[in-house]
């Protein structure tokens, strides 16, 4: 089963982290990477840019409306996600426990359908996992 691991946190909080605290966060993500790569459940990782970069597209009767900013103003923001290919939900939950959970929350949602492709315009951000 393919699971998405959706990470929510507060950007105000992330911006306020000291370098040491930031290193601690990265260490936990590293542990998650190591665990899922060792047991071959790792499928993908994506860290989103700040919500300041977001645009929202809606439709007003027949016109498309492009609004600056994220869809919803919330106290917590969607920060990024992992995809993990686990045998069952228990394994997914065990892996997620390695991630930083001192602040924010993490949602596990199974993937119904997934399709990947080669990247053409993303060379700046894509890290080759192979």
């Amino acid at each position, binding site marked *: 089963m393919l699971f998405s691991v959706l990470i929510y946190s507060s950007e*105000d909080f992330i*911006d*306020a982290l000291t370098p040491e605290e930031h290193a601690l966060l990265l260490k936990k993500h590293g542990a998650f990477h190591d665990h899922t790569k060792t047991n071959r459940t790792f499928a993908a990782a994506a860290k989103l840019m700040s919500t*300041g970069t977001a645009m929202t597209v809606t439709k007003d009767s027949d016109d498309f409306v492009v*609004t600056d900013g994220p869809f919803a103003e919330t106290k917590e923001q969607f920060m990024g996600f992992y995809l993990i290919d686990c045998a069952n939900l228990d394994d997914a939950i065990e892996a997620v426990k390695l991630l930083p959970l001192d602040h924010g929350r993490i949602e596990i949602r199974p993937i119904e359908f997934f399709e990947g492709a080669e990247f053409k315009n993303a060379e700046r951000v894509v890290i080759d996992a192979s």
Partner: protein
Amino acid sequence: MPSAWLSTHLRAARPRVIAALNRAFGDIDLAEDAFQEASLRALRAWRPEALPGDPVAWLIVAGRNAGIDAIRRKSRETLSPPDEIEPAFDGPHPEELLSETLDQAVYRDDILRLLFTCCHPVLRRDQQIALALKVVAGLSVDEIARAFLVQPKTMEQRITRAKKRLRAARLSYEEPDGPGRAQRLSAVANAVYLVFNEGYSASQGPELIRETLCEEAIRLARLLVRLFPEEPELRGLLALCLIQHSRRRARLTGCGRAVTLEDQDRTLWERIPIAEGTILLEAALRAGRPGPLQIEAAIAATHARAATYEATDWHEIDRLYHALEHIRPSPVVALNRAVVQAKLDGIPAALARLDHLSTPLARYAGYHTVRGSFLAELGRAREAQEAYETGLELAGTEVERAFIRGKLGEIGA
């Protein structure tokens, strides 16, 4: 959660809480004291495993109570009847605050009010920077003093004087209308850029870059963009700061010498902030309301795009400087444009353009350095030496002086 993280929560909440308290009390000092007291109460009351659901709202209520207590105490000390001293709240009552703080529109107004006050035009630039760092970012006086290389006592005085000046000006804060709001945001954006720039090219002292200032400016810019994503100049501000900051590792040699764009090792430029800055700029420009920070960001982005110095799109940069001269004319912009035009039209033409700038930039080291380099290129070593020497006298930082001495060395002077 390690208890140290409580202080991170306080740091994260600070701008919004101080902004709300500043509105409630109409006084920055009182807001800061109330925040301080609320923070102490939080450190006693909060448990790592049971933080309040909304720390910001918790701190605002606690801070308001602390502030009201302080006002009552003061009124008893001065023996005045309390009702005369009671502050004229223009905000809602504390019990309404919890639900109200969920409203982003209120946050937006409060933050704008706080920042606009700290960066008010009645204050000198150095006062604006100091106040924004102290009040909004929450840096200690010692930290700010260190960043500016002055004694803590001097910085304390600078901040006290700034607050005094604000009080003396008796600013009445009126909620701005649409265009007024954009104008204030642009004033605030400029002040945040001043903070960044003071860190990016320190005007005095032995170091060129002071990272604390750059990082705090970026944090403020991020907060502003989060609150006002529809304001393109704020996205331009963040884009500019991110792209400039991405080059910091390449701007100095191991021994602290400045490296010009031409000689920087571009592999040291950080690609993630460049990518974020570039997309922020693209989003900003869609609004069709270009401002000086967006144009400066576009110049920075054009440099960042070039794989090598030789591959720089100088025509694009010249167009951008031309636009900048139109929106915000200044002799320094004209000087920068002359450097670009030297690439396009040759050095003699660019040198001729510098003549117009000799009076307004007479005391600006950068002018003499550029002029010196033009003259050196033309083989007029004696005049180049004179220009460099004038620049050397006017340079404010040791890094700048070392750079000019290097230039003098190149022409064998």
